[in-house]
């Protein structure tokens, strides 16, 4: 018979904590931010996460959805998820009111390499809802501003109405983030950039590419072309990081759904170094 190792696993990974919706902020059409608190005080005290990690939000009777965390990791007691209505779970969440409870498992997955970025410039390239998983990283960079060189956000949206967190840009800018936005489709009132977000990377100064890190989150095609632009600017491929998305069912690497070649996106990702997945990103249907 066999001794089965149960190393550090104290809590059953299938157990969901009860969370309550404290408030809801409407962001853009079909996207809202849910500010949550744990029902249990001990869980609230012990819970912590790293920028880039996600939680499984569990609506009993409907199912679970993997949603990245969007709040400041150092602000104890706040836990925000910016959610786009995309399926059954997120659709049901959109019909849920302040004060309601549901389940949460997490945090899961890898995080943005904040420490590895120290001592150099940082370029955050993202688009649409992709800013949500990078917001905790932005807070972290700004909280530790002196450790980094120039920190730049290049943010693309479908149109001027598709940009998240616009009310925070002035504050971010004041705290030292160089915020650059662009849209694929302009409107009459839009005075900013028009064009795909990778063009902002093509154009911006990169004085010390070897010490510049790129953190990217968006559709795979966008991330691939961002990496291409970054490589064109002589930024090394091991300094480019992407956040991948796959169907996540268990979040603990046991169900097989989220595999991307050797990578279990739920536990080896979602944040992963570009050179580790580069060869697979353009394989159709892989």
């Amino acid at each position, binding site marked *: 018979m066999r001794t089965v190792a149960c190393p550090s696993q104290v809590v059953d990974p299938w157990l969901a904590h009860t969370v309550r919706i404290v408030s809801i902020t409407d962001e853009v059409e079909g996207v809202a931010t849910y500010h949550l608190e744990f029902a249990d005080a001990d869980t609230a005290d012990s819970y912590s996460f790293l920028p880039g990690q996600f939680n499984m939000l569990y609506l009993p009777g409907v199912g679970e959805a993997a949603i990245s965390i969007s709040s400041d990791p150092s602000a104890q007691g706040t836990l925000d998820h910016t959610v786009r209505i995309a399926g059954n779970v997120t659709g049901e969440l959109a019909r849920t009111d302040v004060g309601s409870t549901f389940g949460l498992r997490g945090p899961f997955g890898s995080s943005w390499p904040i420490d590895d970025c120290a001592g150099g410039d940082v370029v955050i390239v993202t688009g649409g809802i992709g800013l949500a998983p990078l917001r905790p990283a932005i807070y972290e960079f700004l909280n530790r501003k002196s450790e980094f060189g120039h920190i730049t956000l290049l943010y693309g949206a479908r149109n001027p109405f598709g940009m998240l967190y616009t009310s925070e840009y002035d504050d971010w800018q004041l705290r030292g983030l160089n915020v650059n936005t662009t849209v694929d489709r302009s409107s009459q009132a839009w005075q900013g950039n028009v064009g795909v977000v990778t063009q902002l990377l093509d154009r911006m100064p990169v004085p010390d590419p070897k010490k510049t890190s790129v953190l990217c989150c968006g559709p795979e095609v966008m991330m691939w072309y961002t990496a291409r632009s970054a490589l064109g600017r002589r930024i090394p491929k091991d300094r480019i990081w992407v956040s991948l998305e796959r169907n996540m069912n268990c979040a603990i690497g046991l169900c097989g*759904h989220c595999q991307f070649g050797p990578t279990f996106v739920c536990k080896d990702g979602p944040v992963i170094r570009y050179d580790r997945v580069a060869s697979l990103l353009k394989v159709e249907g892989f």
Partner: protein
Amino acid sequence: MINQQLSGKEMFLPKSEIQSLIDLLRNDGFTVVGPTIDQEAIVYNEIASVDELPRGWTDRQEPGKYRLQKRGDDACFGFVVGPHSWKKYLFPPLTTVASAEKTEAGWQARTPEPDSTRFAFLGVRACELAAIGIQDRVFTEGTYVDPVYAARRRNAFIIAVNCTQAAPTCFCSSMNTGPRCTSGYDLALTELEDGFVIESGSKEGESLVAGLATQDLTSAQITKADSVRQQAVDQQTRHLDTEGIRDVLLTNLSHTRWEEIGDRCLGCTNCTMVCPTCFCSSVEEVADLSGETVERQRHWDSCFNLSFSYMSHGTTRDRISHRYRQWLTHKLASWHDQFDTSGCVGCGRCITWCPVGIDLTEEVAAIRGDGSASATGGAT
């Protein structure tokens, strides 16, 4: 437990004593599971009597074909492997992983108490021992441990049986997983005409043997046991070249062969259901009528199902060729990166139970560019 200091002595167990073995285990609180005949196949079920074993029956297997046939003797284990594997007990096809209840304080989630069932598996083949070893890595040796598997596995008692024959679909020699059982068991049997050679692989196994009417082995019995075990080696004709297989597959993701397989493959999921190492699953919500008590039920799923890679903005693997490629590259290539082992044990079930007889050894050979395909030619 396995790997403790053991006497290592082999004994002779008369055929009549198999019932005593079953009885001892049952009296000790084990649920004994062994091969039985059901729906014209040899499958694993709970047993209480030696009479439930498929005595005198064997299986004839080929790509896409499986038939039972009478043997000329009354061997209890004179067959190879059927559609079932032990994973159905350690990683149940349907199980509750959590539940939730609506209370006055809101939704409260719970997880079930660890399963206390103690299984004794009778008739575990070498390739199946290897498969259990692989699932041990998947479910219990990573960042997260699956509580359902861990509880059932912890309690399992394993009686291995050495193969004395091989099917044309077997290729465990290629995978270095058999046919000889070398570790991972509590007891191991080799079937002779009138009884078994029995050896212990754990203290628990040793103490169980102490309660059986064993005899010292004769030199003739030792010779006979060696020769019937050698038969299983000699009869193997199918071969999978594993040399550099990970890179061969992962550098050929755009090979035209994938589309050809995609045209033949029905995407039926049979190969993944019969595979003793496939571990893919999905969790679904099962609510009562009031919607206030919900069970989270995990069921086996398959990378061949279209919904398996579904995402809100599209399905990642929307063609059968993509899904077959996912299955084969996972099993034989990326499994090495993930678990430091192949995901294939060479049992041949996926070949036998494929309705169109797709043979992975042949597909790997084609992607390698061998032209020769498998040694026996396989099915086309």
